[in-house]
């Protein structure tokens, strides 16, 4: 999908994912939540966003 954000933190805002806590991987590697503002996005990056759901 096309996005206009420069950093991961901006991307989460753009996707309106800042309302609930989430964890993020970029290209299969975890990006620690404190580092999101320092991680700049590149063309073709694969971003995975997860949260907690009910489970056993």
């Amino acid at each position, binding site marked *: 999908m096309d996005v206009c954000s420069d950093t991961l933190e901006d991307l989460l805002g753009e996707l309106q994912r800042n309302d609930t806590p989430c*964890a993020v991987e970029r290209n299969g590697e975890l990006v620690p*939540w404190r580092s999101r503002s320092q991680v700049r996005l590149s063309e073709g990056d694969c971003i995975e966003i997860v949260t907690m759901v009910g*489970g056993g």
Partner: protein
Amino acid sequence: MSMTTFETGVDPLCIGPFTLKSRLIAGTGKYACWDVMCEALDASGCDAVTVAVRRERLHDAEGRSLLDYLDLDRYTILPNTAGCFDAADAIRVARLGRDLLEQLGNAGAQWVKLEVLGDRTTLLPDPVGTLQACQELVADGFTVLCYSSDDPIMATRLRDAGAASVMPAGSPIGSGRGIANPAAIQIIRNLLKDPAHGGDPGYPLVVDAGVGTPSDVALAMELGADGVLLNTGIAHAKDPVAMARGMRLACEAGALGYRSGRIEKKLYASASSPWTGMINEIPGE
């Protein structure tokens, strides 16, 4: 509605750095609605609850999700790696769960319920992948609670790999078949906890999965388990809140039964009232 509390005399459950007042750990999946889940968790008396890590936010009709309902000051969240079929994926999911719980400031960031599944129909664990993931997660600093089959040798392998607790399935996840092989659970208990078998009495054994009814929980505890982890047995009961209360009482009852040292089973009767001083004649004497 709150249950009358009383001093049960049941010690807390210690797993790695975690101390839990309740020996029951409850899941948060499969509930018809969040309000029932909250009430059932309360009735179960549990301190720790399992969660899964997923892409979807799974909002209800009001747009609320699990995190809007779970009291993070009350419960230690135990993230699982459910649905993972190899070690690499389980490790990825464990790290994502840790990152989430660090953000939330919940102590559960330190531990993980490791599941590496071998098959989607049985949901039985893949022992090779489980062992590999356990080793890597322990090396990465996790307190690993390891879902396993009821294979006694596998249990010792996981313990030796650094698992903080081995959690054999009573029977397949969600099956409600209870403790399918009580002898296997007893042998696991002996190998992990009995010094005569090289075990450590303080090593926590938790029976995970397959529990359908309170007597299953009581049996697990009477076999010498230190705790029981369950989800479907409560969440899919017709009355999850009452079932949660039953599971809690059964857990306490079973723990007391095991600790108290049951009587030996005998083939013949043993009278509770004295034979001396009888006013009548006893046949045959």
